[in-house]
């Protein structure tokens, strides 16, 4: 951190005052510099690279993201040793700057729908790449617009007259030396977006563009010189990269939300407004219950997501070492879990950031609700796994992992308990029993969705129609499952904290997270008879008590996130709280203030006044 902040090479004018082109240029400058410094300091560990990167770019996207985050890793995981010899070192040394071109203008999350073709020509031993329609133009890949000279392109492979599905190809797109697009390649920037100003998201159109046979990534599937296609061992493996990225987004949701909370809570401690009591000075707005109610549940959520992010990262590295040893048994649950949690955390975080009203973090983070898998689709993937698990339980099998609560459903059915008898035992001040309540809610909603699905099937609807007609229920079930998982992980973390004072405040946050979630979804808990009206009233009351309890620690809790002022990039969120003075200084630097009298006065206002 200090390496970056103290380096004058990384200083620049406030980004808020720069145009898109200028922002892009600054980002490229810093990326180029960053790569050189990384090598200079000998930083090669991916975790360290990640931190270095995030300090250089202050958590913003940058044109080399896809090169470092997708192009290099894909080469490592999907290229043959020969291909690695050819491409990896040049890419490592940035003679090749690559991107990852998957999404097309007309096709996103549904990979099989992609239209780009790669047709094998045995006569020349080449693949001929084509973008046959407007909708097949590659659209959105970061770094594609202006920066990259190579791309890994996903295309439908045709050989011997047959379509073999999606495969990845290494495609040169710009001339080395001049950076001009190669003949047959049309490439450019897709124009302004909501955020991501420094990123040159691009388009790519290919017309009969030929690449040698050896440019198909062939660690798993292969095309032999005569055009014979050799199948990979498991087709799930290609999803590995996406699972990895999704797990990173969960961590990112936690960090973005933490930044937003830091800014909003510090500012709320500085800002004074109105009167609570007549005659007294205006109180800090953080003393208003409504403000606490907006911010503290988000703070609790930020902590919850930190623990979830850490959990997923650990699970991912465990499962991926299993995969390397050929054990794929945990992949389905991992896939289901990352999909749902990615959707759940990015939705919640982006709504939370909006609640804090922070434009910069919001626009940088919100797109994660769409990229790497649109969130509703993600939720439905999780639901598919939940329904499958439910059906296994119904047919007498037992399930393991996070869904093991479904095993209990059959037992509950045999011994129906009276609502009152069951609910009296949920003490609302104990995180463990609240996790039980979330568990019961998830079980109930999974069961309801599975039953509704079955009912639709019994109406002799096709499987697909039935699924579509139940999908709103299915998404709700997935959300409830994810909510349960998060509450569970947060609660489990408490016992690991050794410092008593820290454990006490974390327990308060954990309780707030769980109770606030209940108060926002009272319908589910009431309808399933998990909680009574009276308990809901208590829950609401307890949430408000917790707000007051957390209030004295609020600033300390965001200070613990330990964001540097430069990283926050916010006038409102400064560690020293000198908000107003700095806002004024900042505004004076605005480009509109560069001249005392704006040129439009002479151009438009004055002539008008003269005429009228």
């Amino acid at each position: 951190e200090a390496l970056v902040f103290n380096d004058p090479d990384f200083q620049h004018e406030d980004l808020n005052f720069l145009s898109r082109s200028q922002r892009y240029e600054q980002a490229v400058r810093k990326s180029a510099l960053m790569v050189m410094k990384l090598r200079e300091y000998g930083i090669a560990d991916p975790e360290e690279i990640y931190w270095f990167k995030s300090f250089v770019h202050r958590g913003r996207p940058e044109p080399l993201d896809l090169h470092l985050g997708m192009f290099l890793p894909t080469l490592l995981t999907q290229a043959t040793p020969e291909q690695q010899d050819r491409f990896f070192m040049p890419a490592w040394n940035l003679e090749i700057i690559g991107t990852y071109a998957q999404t097309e203008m007309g096709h996103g999350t549904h990979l099989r729908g992609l239209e780009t073709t790669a047709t094998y020509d045995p006569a020349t031993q080449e693949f001929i790449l084509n973008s046959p329609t407007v909708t097949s133009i590659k659209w959105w890949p970061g770094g594609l617009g202006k920066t990259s000279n190579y791309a890994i392109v996903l295309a439908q492979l045709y050989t011997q007259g047959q379509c073999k599905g999606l495969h990845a190809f290494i495609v040169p797109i710009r001339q080395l030396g001049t950076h001009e697009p190669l003949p047959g390649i049309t490439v450019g920037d897709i124009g302004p977006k909501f955020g991501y100003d420094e990123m040159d998201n691009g388009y790519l159109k290919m017309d009969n563009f030929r690449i040698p046979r050896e440019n198909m990534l062939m660690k798993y599937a292969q095309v032999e010189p005569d055009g014979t296609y050799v199948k990979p061992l498991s087709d799930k493996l290609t999803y590995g990269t996406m699972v990895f990225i999704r797990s990173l987004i969960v961590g990112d949701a936690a960090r973005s939300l933490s930044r937003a909370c830091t800014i909003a809570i510090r500012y709320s401690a500085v800002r004074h407004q109105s009167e609570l009591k007549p005659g007294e000075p205006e109180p800090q707005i953080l003393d208003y219950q409504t403000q606490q109610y907006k911010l503290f549940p988000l703070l609790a959520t930020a902590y919850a997501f930190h623990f979830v992010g850490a959990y997923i990262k650990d699970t991912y590295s465990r499962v991926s070492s299993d995969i390397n040893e050929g054990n794929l048994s945990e992949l389905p649950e991992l896939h289901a879990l990352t999909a749902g949690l990615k959707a759940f955390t990015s939705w919640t975080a982006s709504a939370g950031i909006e609640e804090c009203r922070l434009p910069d973090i919001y626009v940088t983070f919100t797109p994660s609700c769409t990229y790497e898998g649109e969130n509703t689709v993600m939720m439905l993937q999780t639901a598919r796994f939940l329904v499958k698990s439910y059906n296994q339980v119904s047919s007498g099998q037992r399930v393991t992992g996070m869904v093991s609560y479904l095993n209990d459903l059959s037992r509950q059915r045999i011994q129906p308990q009276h609502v009152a008898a069951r609910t009296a035992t949920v003490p609302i001040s104990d995180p463990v029993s609240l996790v039980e309540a979330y568990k019961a809610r998830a079980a109930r909603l999974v069961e309801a969705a599975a039953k509704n699905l079955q009912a639709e099937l019994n109406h002799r609807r096709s499987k697909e129609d039935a699924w579509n007609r139940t999908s709103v229920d299915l998404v709700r079930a997935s959300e409830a499952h994810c909510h349960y998982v998060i509450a569970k992980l947060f609660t489990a973390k408490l016992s690991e904290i050794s410092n008593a004072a820290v454990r006490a405040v974390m327990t308060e946050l954990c309780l707030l997270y769980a109770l606030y979630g209940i108060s926002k979804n009272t319908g589910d808990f009431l309808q399933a008879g998990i909680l009574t009206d009276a308990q809901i009233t208590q829950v609401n009351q307890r949430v408000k008590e917790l707000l007051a309890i957390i209030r004295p620690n609020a600033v300390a809790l965001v200070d613990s996130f330990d964001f540097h002022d430069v990283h926050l990039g916010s006038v409102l969120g400064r560690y020293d709280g000198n908000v107003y003075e700095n806002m004024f200084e900042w505004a004076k630097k605005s480009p509109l203030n560069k001249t005392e009298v704006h040129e439009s006065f002479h151009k438009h206002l004055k002539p008008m006044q003269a005429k009228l």
Partner: protein
Amino acid sequence: SVNHDLASERQTASFSVEKLTAWLDGGAEHTRIRRAVVEAIECDPVFSRENQYFQSQNERYEAAVRKAVHLQKKMHEMGWTENGPEFKYIYRALSGDVAFLLHRIFMRSISVLGSDKQIAKWIPLASQYQLIGSYAQTELGHGTYLQGLETTAVFDNATQEFILNTPKISAMKWWPGDMGRSATHTVVFAQLYVHGKCYGVHPFIVQIRSLQDHSLCPGIIAGDIGPKMSFEHIDNGYLMLQNVRVPRENMLNKFCEVQPDGTYVRLGSQQINYFTMTTVRISLISDEAVIPLMKACTIAIRYSVVRRQSKLKPGEQEAKILDYQTQQEKLLPQLAAAYAFHFINDYLQELFEKGYREVQRKNFDTLPELHAFSSGFKAMVTQYCTSAVEICLRACGGHGYSLLSGLPSLYTKILASCIYEGENTILLLQAARFLNKCFMAASAGQPVPPSVTYLAAVKHGKCPAKTKVDFLSPDIYTEAYQHMAVRLVSSTAAKLQDLIQSGVKKHDAWNQCTVQLVQAAKAHCHYITVKNFAETVEKLKTEAGIQKIMKHLCDLFALHGIFSNAGVFLHDGYLSGAQMDMVTASYLDLLAVIRKDAVPLVDAFDFTDKNLNSALGSYDGQVYQRLYEWAQKSPTNMQVSPAYERYLKPLLHNTRSKI
């Protein structure tokens, strides 16, 4: 040609789009006038917005000033006047992308708060643009809470002047539109001091820039506040006053006056000072919240029938995304809300015109109700519409994030509406204060304004619905909303009373109840919106096709609210768990029904392509072609990137020697 997926949607409309449009406009004659205004503005290249997504803040500002100046000429040419029927359509036709909006508020505040003499002096100057006005209320450290403002205006008996000052940095005026660069005058709100005594916040007309060379007047420091999340075209400004003197006559004095000897005379209710804000709040509901939502729905729904993704059935073509239940559940409730709020806006406009006439006659009786209505509905509608536009943005997947979709700019603009003219939470609390007061009065048998008489009729009992079809009866769901609103208002009032009786100080008790008070105020507004929608549909008897589809939308709006807020309806057992399942079933059934008319329903909003300014939402549905062609016009593609020569080239070529 029209994309065939979109064209096919229009062949099955269950009603006449043209008739619905005319009805929404308030008659075919209004539609004709609106279209004529839009046509006149759009065929004039000065008003083009085609490049706006590529422009810098400076360029946007210059364009907005250019348009504002040109508009004066245009109005003259076309014979449009400020009081004519065309006027209200101009802003819509320009999509608000024009400067001098605060100039109008400047004029309005003078008309409302100024004496006849002041009106006669300032209004002609302003309407001739001999000066450009702004409205300086908000300060760096103070927003919605007016009494907290720190700017001071001290009366100097000797010179018959007020001396205005910004005593500290948090008192600096911050945010007023048109003030950063354009305005020559502004209405400054300041604490009035006469002979050392403070009389509260009053409005003063202050000149800030020279009328000759536009330089700042002595004692004035002003400028632009820098880049924002939206409103790039407006020069929101800051203003510091250092011993700025204005003549005694510059205090707006229709309702209170400082006489030459320093005697302070009050001529009416002090609440009148808020009246400008009250009317602004109401007028922004349509322009800044409902219309943007209608546009967002138009873009998202048209795109959702052009975009295909995955397969519903194996072997078939990829399905239109609007055929997915989850996509319908995202978009159709927002469409229903757009209609619901269009109707509530009509209702509020009528209420306000009545109120305005009363105030002109110096009858202030309706002010508290108007104030509560404007606060509550401004907050509820802007908040709802903001979430709704965001849902539309997200429902368009990746392309929604391109500025060329039009959705990000709609979103950032509508988000601001949750804050300006009163932060929403504070406004909801103001509405709650009114409701609480009325509830107490009603309980004590005293008369209350007609909009809240329902609070007096506290009914216990259960919802009588027996099947899911029962929930398609407006009586059933309106009753449920009413029950819920009464319960929330009354239980909060009871809690507040309990706290006070148990010895908690009034202000602390209030703060401890604010979360519930906000909930109660929203519930009240939600109830009125549902009720008004149902009554509007009821009145529609003659237009069969339209009434049927409007009834579906009304049902959807109401049931969506119950579905998404199940807890508050289940809480006291008014609805049972089984009834909630019926609500869900009816609600999901409605999605499939309204799905069929989704495109005709957005077509009826009648936005031109130029007005939408969206690659995804155009009438012909040529989404991908437009996106591709438009992107190529981006400056990032027109000019050689300096980054290549400067940074990338050395990186790509000399790496070995450097690394």
